[in-house]
C-alpha cells in the first residue's frame, strides 16, 4: 500500500429492506486499494462480497440503503456523488465484470456495438473511431478474428469468449479500477485459467487496480496481492496473500483454508465449518462468527468489535485472534 489509495472504503454499512425485516448485509466494512494493486475478496455465499462490489459501483438493488460510511474513489465520495457524476465514472474510471458472461451481455446487440456504446459514452469518439477501438479491444483480449467477431452476438460465442468480450467492454476506457465479480464461475477449468491469466496480464499492462471477488480461495491465492475475507457482512481479515495462508489470524479464515480441497489433503483432513451464516435480520452479536467459532469466550460477546492490526498490513476483526 503506497501513497493515497485509489479506493478507500471506510466503515461502510448497508442494509436491505425485505418482507421479513431488515437485512444488515454489510457492517463497518473498511478496505482500501492502491493503484495497480490486486485485492481478493473471499467469502461464502451470503457473506456480502457481491453486495460490497455493487455498492462500490453504485448499482445496488433499490431496496438497499447505505446506513453509514464512505466510499472514496480518488478522494471523491461515491455515495454522495450525483448520479450524473457517478455515471461518468462508471465504465470510464471504474469497471466491472460479472459471472455468467453469456447473460451479462445484451443478447440482441452485436458485441462490438456494446463495446462501442461504452466508448461513445465516455471516450468522446466518433462512431468510426469507436468501432475501430472496439475491434482493437477485442484483439487485446485475444479474440481471434476480432473484425468479424465484433458483429457476432453473445449467443454465437462460448462462455469463455463472452467473458473476454466482457473484459474488453470493461477495459475499453482504460479504467483505473476493475471489479471482477466471480469472473470464472461457471466456466470450465481450462477456460477459467485462461481468463484469469488475461485479467492478470491486462491489469499489469495498464497499471489497473483489481478487486477479485470469489468464493474460491485457490483462485484468490493465485492472482491477488492481498486478500480480504468476508463473513456475514463483516470483513474479518485482510492480509497479504502469502501471510494469510501462512498465518491466518481469524479463526474463520483458518477454518476456510482448512475446508478447501487442495492437493495433498485427504477427505478426512477437510475440516467442515460447523454451523451456518447467522440470520442477518434482527439484532446480531458483535462477532457474527461467534456462534460457529470453537474459540468463543465471554469476551467475544462483549462490546463492539473493531478491526485491529495483527501484523503490519494484516488486520483482523476478532477478540481472540489466533
Amino acid at each position, binding site marked *: 500500500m503506497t501513497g493515497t489509495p485509489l479506493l478507500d472504503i471506510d466503515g461502510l454499512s448497508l442494509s436491505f429492506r425485505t418482507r421479513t425485516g431488515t437485512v444488515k448485509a454489510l457492517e463497518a466494512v473498511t478496505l482500501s486499494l492502491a493503484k495497480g494493486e490486486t485485492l481478493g475478496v473471499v467469502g461464502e455465499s451470503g457473506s456480502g462480497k457481491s453486495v460490497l462490489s455493487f455498492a462500490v459501483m*453504485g*448499482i*445496488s*438493488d*433499490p431496496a*438497499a440503503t447505505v446506513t453509514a460510511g464512505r466510499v472514496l474513489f480518488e478522494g471523491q465520495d461515491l455515495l454522495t456523488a450525483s*448520479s450524473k457524476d*457517478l*455515471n461518468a465514472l462508471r465504465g470510464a474510471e471504474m469497471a466491472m465484470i460479472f459471472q455468467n458472461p453469456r447473460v451479462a451481455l445484451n443478447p440482441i446487440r452485436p458485441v462490438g456495438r456494446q463495446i462501442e456504446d461504452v466508448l461513445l459514452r465516455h471516450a468522446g469518439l466518433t462512431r468510426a473511431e469507436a468501432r475501430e477501438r472496439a475491434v482493437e479491444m477485442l484483439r487485446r483480449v485475444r479474440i481471434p478474428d476480432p473484425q468479424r467477431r465484433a458483429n457476432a452476438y453473445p449467443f454465437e460465442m462460448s462462455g469463455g469468449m463472452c467473458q473476454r468480450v466482457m473484459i474488453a467492454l470493461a477495459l475499453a476506457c482504460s479504467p483505473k479500477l476493475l471489479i471482477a465479480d466471480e469472473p470464472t464461475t461457471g466456466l470450465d477449468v481450462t477456460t477459467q485459467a485462461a481468463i484469469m491469466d488475461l485479467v492478470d496480464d491486462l491489469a499489469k499492462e495498464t497499471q489497473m487496480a483489481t478487486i477479485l471477488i470469489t468464493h474460491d480461495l485457490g483462485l484468490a491465492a493465485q492472482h491477488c496481492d492481498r486478500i480480504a475475507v468476508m463473513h456475514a457482512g463483516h470483513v474479518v481479515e485482510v492480509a497479504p496473500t502469502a501471510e494469510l495462508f501462512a498465518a491466518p489470524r481469524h479463526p474463520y479464515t483458518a477454518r476456510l483454508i482448512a475446508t478447501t480441497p487442495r492437493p495433498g489433503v485427504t477427505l478426512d483432513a477437510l475440516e467442515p465449518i460447523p454451523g451456518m451464516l447467522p440470520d442477518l435480520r434482527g439484532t446480531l452479536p458483535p462477532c457474527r462468527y461467534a456462534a460457529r467459532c470453537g474459540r468463543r469466550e465471554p469476551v467475544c460477546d462483549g462490546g463492539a468489535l473493531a478491526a485491529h492490526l495483527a501484523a503490519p498490513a494484516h488486520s483482523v476483526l476478532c477478540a481472540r485472534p489466533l
Partner: protein
Amino acid sequence: MAASCKAPSLPRFILGLAVGGALGSVALFATAPAAAQSREETLLVVVESGTNSLDIHTVGANPASYGVTWNTYDRLITYGTKTLPDGSLSYDHSVLKPELAESWEATEEGIVFHLRKDAKFHDGTPVTAKDVKWSFDRMVTVGGFPTFQMAAGSITKPEQFEAIDDHTFKVKLPVKDKLALPDLGVPVPVVMNSALVKKNATPEDPWGLEWTKRNDAGGGAYKVESWKPGQELVLTRYEEWKSGPLPKLKKVVMREVPSAGNRRALLERGDVDVSFDLPPKDSQELAKGGKVSVVGTPIENSLWFVGMNVKMPPFDNVKVRQAVSYAVPYQPIMDAVVYGRGIPMFGGPEKVTSAAWPQPSPYRTDIAKAKALMAEAGFSDGFTTTLSINQGAAQIAEPLATLLQESLGQIGIKTTINKVPGANWRAAILKKDQPILVDTFSGWLNYPEYYFFWGYHGQNAVFNVMSYQNPAMDKLIDAARLESDKAKYEDDIKSFVSLAFEEMPRVPLFQYYLDIAMRKNVTGYTYWFHRGLDFRPMAKG
C-alpha cells in the same frame, strides 16, 4: 433499478406523449371541414340498412330497393297524392297519374298507353315503346317476386305486351282485372333502357340482371351517382327528366348507420336531414321534442298480431286461443312497446259493424276470463310452449314477447322466447312449426280481402302463419274478391272479420306507424305504400 439509474423523466415523457396525442386529435376534431357549399341542395338520409340491388327485378332485391328504383326508374303510370287529416302527404290509391304515359285508354283487349315523346333515359337515349315492351317481357319472365307481383293484376306473359309504334304500347288482358291498372303503378313495372341493358347482357344472363343489379339503366328523376353496397348510395337529379316537375333536390345521399341511437343523434345534431327506421320510442320523443318533425302514417292494411298455430295442440282448441286473446297485455304493449306510434286494435265493439280493415277486435285484457277459458279448455294447470319472434324486428317484437310471456304466465302458459334471426324468419314461418309467434303482415294493395287472402285463406300461404283453414272463411274471402256490389261486399267483409274474431287464430294488436323523422326544413315527404322515400316532391327550405 439502481438508485443512480432512475429515470425521472419517464412518467413525464409518457404523460407528455398522451397529452400531446390527445391535444392533437382534439385539434383535428375541432376544425371539422366546413364543406357546406352543396348542403342546401343535398338531402342526407340515414337508414338502418340499404338496398342490395339497383334493379328491383333481381333475385333477392330487398325492400330498400323499392324506394331506390322508385326514384331512378319511371313507370308508365303512378298514383296521385292526397293530404291526410294530420296535414301530412300520402299517395292516393284512388287516383292514377301519368308518368311515362301521357294518357291511356281501356280497350276490349286491355289497355293502350300513349308515351310522352320527350322522355329520355339517363344516357340520352329516347324512351320508346320497345323499351317498355322489353322491360315488361323481362319482369314477367325473370320469375320470383316481380313476376309474382304482376300476376296479381293478371299480367303474366310477354304475349300480352305489344309496342304498336315508338310511342304507343298495349297491354292485353285475359280478364277484366280491376287490379291490372293499379298494379302498373307499383314499383315493379319499371321501364328500362333496353339497348343499354342488352349491350351488357351475357348468354347466361340474357336479361342483363347481373349488370343492372349494379348499374343504372333508367330514366327516372334521379341518377345513381355512386353506390357502395352496405355503405352509401348517392343519387343526383336527372336534369332532363320530363315525366314530372323537376325535383328540387340536386343530390341525395343515403348512408347506412346500423345503430339506432346514432341515427337519432345524427338527426338531432342536424348532421343529417332524414332518418328512416327509428324505433317507436325515438319517434315519440322526437315528435314531442319538437326539434325535428316526425311524420307518422299508419301503415295501410297492416297489423301486428299474435299468431297461434291451429294445427298444433293445444292451440287447436279455440278456447285456448280465446284465452290467449284475453291474456294479452294490450295497453302495456301500446305504452311500453309502441310508445303510442300505432293504432290500438283491441277493445272494439262486441259485434263487427265496420267493413274496414284493420279494425279492433272485441278482446281486451281480462285475466280472470282468460283463466276461466283455460279451465274450460281443460288446461287449468296451463302448459309449456315456445314463443317465436323475428330477431330482425326485435325492437318491437322482443319487448312485446316479454310482456306477453309474463301475461301468459299468469294463466299458466309457460313460454320460452325463441329469437329467430331476421333472415331466417321467412324460412321459419314457411315451415309452420312455430306454435305461437309474434309477427306483422301488410298488404300493398289496400283491400281487406287481400289481407285475408294471405293471412286466413285455406290455401295456407306463407303468411297464414297459423295454418288456419276453414272452408267457411275461404268461401267468404273468395266471394268478397269477386263481389262488385258494395253492400254485399261489405257484408262479406264483416262476416269474415267476425269469423276471424270468433276463431282468433291471430290476435290483432295494433296498426303500426311508418315514422319518418326529418329536420324542420325538409318538406314534401309523402307516404307510399311501398314504404320507400320519394325524393321527387321533397325539398329543403
